[in-house]
C-alpha cells in the first residue's frame, strides 16, 4: 500500500529561504534555474562487473554495475536477450533509508531507468540471442545509491548508460549448439543513448536537477527521458502536486535540450 510520506525532518525556515530565493530567480547553491550540478563520471570502478560507472552529481553518488550472464528468454520473446534493472536505496546513503526489500521509491527508480533503456532500444536484445527459445544473454543493471543529495533518477540513468556503454562481455562461437567462449571480450550491442532529465516544481518555478533540499520543498517533479535522436522514450510525474498543461510542455522542451549536454558528458567519460 502506498502512503503519503512523512514530513522530512527539516526546519520550515530553511524551506522558506529556498522559496524566497527562487522568487528572485536564485537557488541556494548559486546555480541557474536550469543548470545541472557538476557531473563526474568514472567508469570501470568494479573490475569484477562487466561494466560499471560511479557518478557524482553534485553530492549525490550512485554506482551502477552491469553483469551479463546466460539465461532463458521470456516465452513471448524467444529470440531476444533479457534486460533487468534493479535499484537499491542502500541504507548508508541517507538517514531516511532503511534496510529491507525495495520500497516504492526504489521500485519506481528502477522502473523509470528501465523504461529509458528498454523503450529507446538502447540494447540490441535480438543480438543477445544464443539459441532461440533456449539460451540468451541476460543483462543485469543494478543501481546502487550510495549518497542521496537529490535527483537519484537522473544520476542513476546517466550512470547506467555509462556502465552499459563501457561494459564488456564474452565473445563466443556456437559449435554444435554449445557455446564456445572466445578469449577476447566485446562491447555490449548498445545502439541508443537514453538520458533522463528531471525538473522540480517549487511554488510556480521549474528547476532542473533538484538537490535534496529542493526535493524536500518541491510539490512535484517531472522526469523526461529522451534518446539520441531527440525522441521521448519515457516520462514520469512524481510527487503530490500537479502541473499546468503548459508547464508539462515547457518541461519537455527544457528536458530535451538539456539531455544532449548530458549525453556529451557521458560520451566523454566513456571514451577515456
Amino acid at each position, binding site marked *: *500500500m*502506498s*502512503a*503519503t510520506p*512523512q*514530513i522530512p525532518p527539516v526546519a520550515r525556515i530553511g524551506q522558506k529561504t529556498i522559496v524566497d530565493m527562487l522568487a528572485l530567480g536564485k537557488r541556494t547553491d548559486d546555480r541557474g534555474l536550469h543548470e545541472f550540478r557538476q557531473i563526474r563520471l568514472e567508469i570501470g570502478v568494479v573490475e569484477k562487473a562487466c561494466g560499471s560507472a560511479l557518478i557524482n552529481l553534485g553530492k549525490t553518488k550512485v554506482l551502477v554495475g552491469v553483469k551479463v550472464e546466460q539465461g532463458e528468454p*521470456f*516465452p*513471448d*520473446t524467444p*529470440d*531476444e536477450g533479457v534486460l533487468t534493472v534493479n535499484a537499491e536505496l542502500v541504507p548508508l546513503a541517507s538517514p531516511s533509508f532503511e534496510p529491507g526489500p*525495495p520500497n*516504492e521509491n526504489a*521500485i*519506481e527508480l*528502477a*522502473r523509470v531507468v528501465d*523504461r529509458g533503456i*528498454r*523503450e*529507446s532500444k538502447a540494447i540490441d536484445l535480438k543480438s543477445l540471442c544464443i539459441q532461440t527459445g533456449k539460451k540468451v544473454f541476460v543483462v543485469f543493471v543494478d543501481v546502487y545509491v550510495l549518497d542521496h543529495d537529490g535527483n537519484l533518477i537522473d544520476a542513476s540513468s546517466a550512470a547506467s548508460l555509462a556502465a552499459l556503454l563501457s561494459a564488456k562481455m564474452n565473445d563466443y562461437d556456437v559449435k554444435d549448439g554449445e557455446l564456445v567462449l572466445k578469449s577476447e571480450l566485446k562491447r555490449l550491442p548498445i545502439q541508443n543513448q537514453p538520458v533522463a532529465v528531471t525538473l522540480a516544481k517549487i511554488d510556480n518555478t521549474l528547476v532542473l536537477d533538484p538537490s535534496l533540499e529542493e526535493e524536500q520543498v518541491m510539490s512535484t517533479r*517531472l522526469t523526461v527521458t529522451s*534518446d539520441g535522436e*531527440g*525522441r*521521448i*522514450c*519515457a*516520462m*514520469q*510525474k*512524481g*510527487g*503530490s*502536486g*500537479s*502541473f*499546468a*498543461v503548459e508547464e*508539462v*510542455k515547457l518541461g*519537455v*522542451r527544457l528536458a*530535451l535540450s538539456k539531455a544532449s549536454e548530458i549525453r556529451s558528458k557521458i560520451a566523454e567519460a566513456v571514451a577515456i
Partner: protein
Amino acid sequence: MSEMKSQDQSIELVDVNGRRIDGRSLDELRPIKIEVGVLDKADGSSYIEQGKNKILAAVYGPREAHPKHVALPHRAVLRCRYHMAPFSTSERKSPAPSRREQELSKVIREALEPAVLSEYYPRTTIDLFIEVLQSDGGSRCAGITSASLALADAGIPMRGLVTACAVGKIAGKVALDLSDTEDKQGEADLPVAIMPQSNVITLIQMDGTLNPEEFEAAFDMAVRACQGIHEQQKIALKQRYLSIKEEVEEKKETEVEKEE
C-alpha cells in the same frame, strides 16, 4: 504495460479505413459504464467498465490511523493500493503484489493527492483500494477515474474530481484509449490524469517512442478525452440522488391524478 512485448506483427492494428481491430476510429474511446455507491460496507465506492476493463474502487475513511506513527499532524494520510485479481489477465497472475502494482499504487496515490482537501482531517488515514477484476489496457487510468468517485462518494471534501485516460501510438499513428493488444504491439503509451476543476495534470507517464510533435498531439488528445469522461463522472455521482428525486416526483403525480 507489459515487460514482455509480443513480436507478432501479423495483426494489423489500423486498417486502410483508419479502423482499429475493435472497429474504433483513432480518436474514439471504448464504451464506459460507471456506477457509484456499489458496496455496502465501504464509506464510498465506485465501479467502472471501460472496454473489457472491470475495476472496483472503495474508500474507508477518514478513520483513525493504525499504526499511529503513520499519521501526520496537520492532514490526513492518503493510502492507496492498486491490485490486480489473479484471474484478471489472460494468464493467471500471482496474487502477491508485483513491482508494477507497487509503482502504480504510488503514482495513483500521487494522482489523487492534489484533489483531496486532506487538511480537514489531521491525524487520520483515508484508505483507497482499487481492485482490477478484469484488465484490458488502461487500467490505471480507469482506476483513477473510479477512485476519485469513490472518494467523493465517501463524502471526503475534494477540490474536484480527477479523470484519467491514456493515448498511445499504433501503426505510427496517435490513438486514444489503447486496449491491451494495442498497447503490447503499439509504439507508445501515455497515461494522463487531470483535475478538470483547475485544469491541472496530476499524473503523466510515458513509455515507448514519441517525437516532440507526436507527444503534443497525444497529450492534447488525452486532455480533451478526459474532459468528456469528467461529464460522465459527474452524472454517475449524481445519478442515485436524481433517480430518487424523479421517483418521488412521479409518485406525487400519480397521486395527484388519483385524486382528480
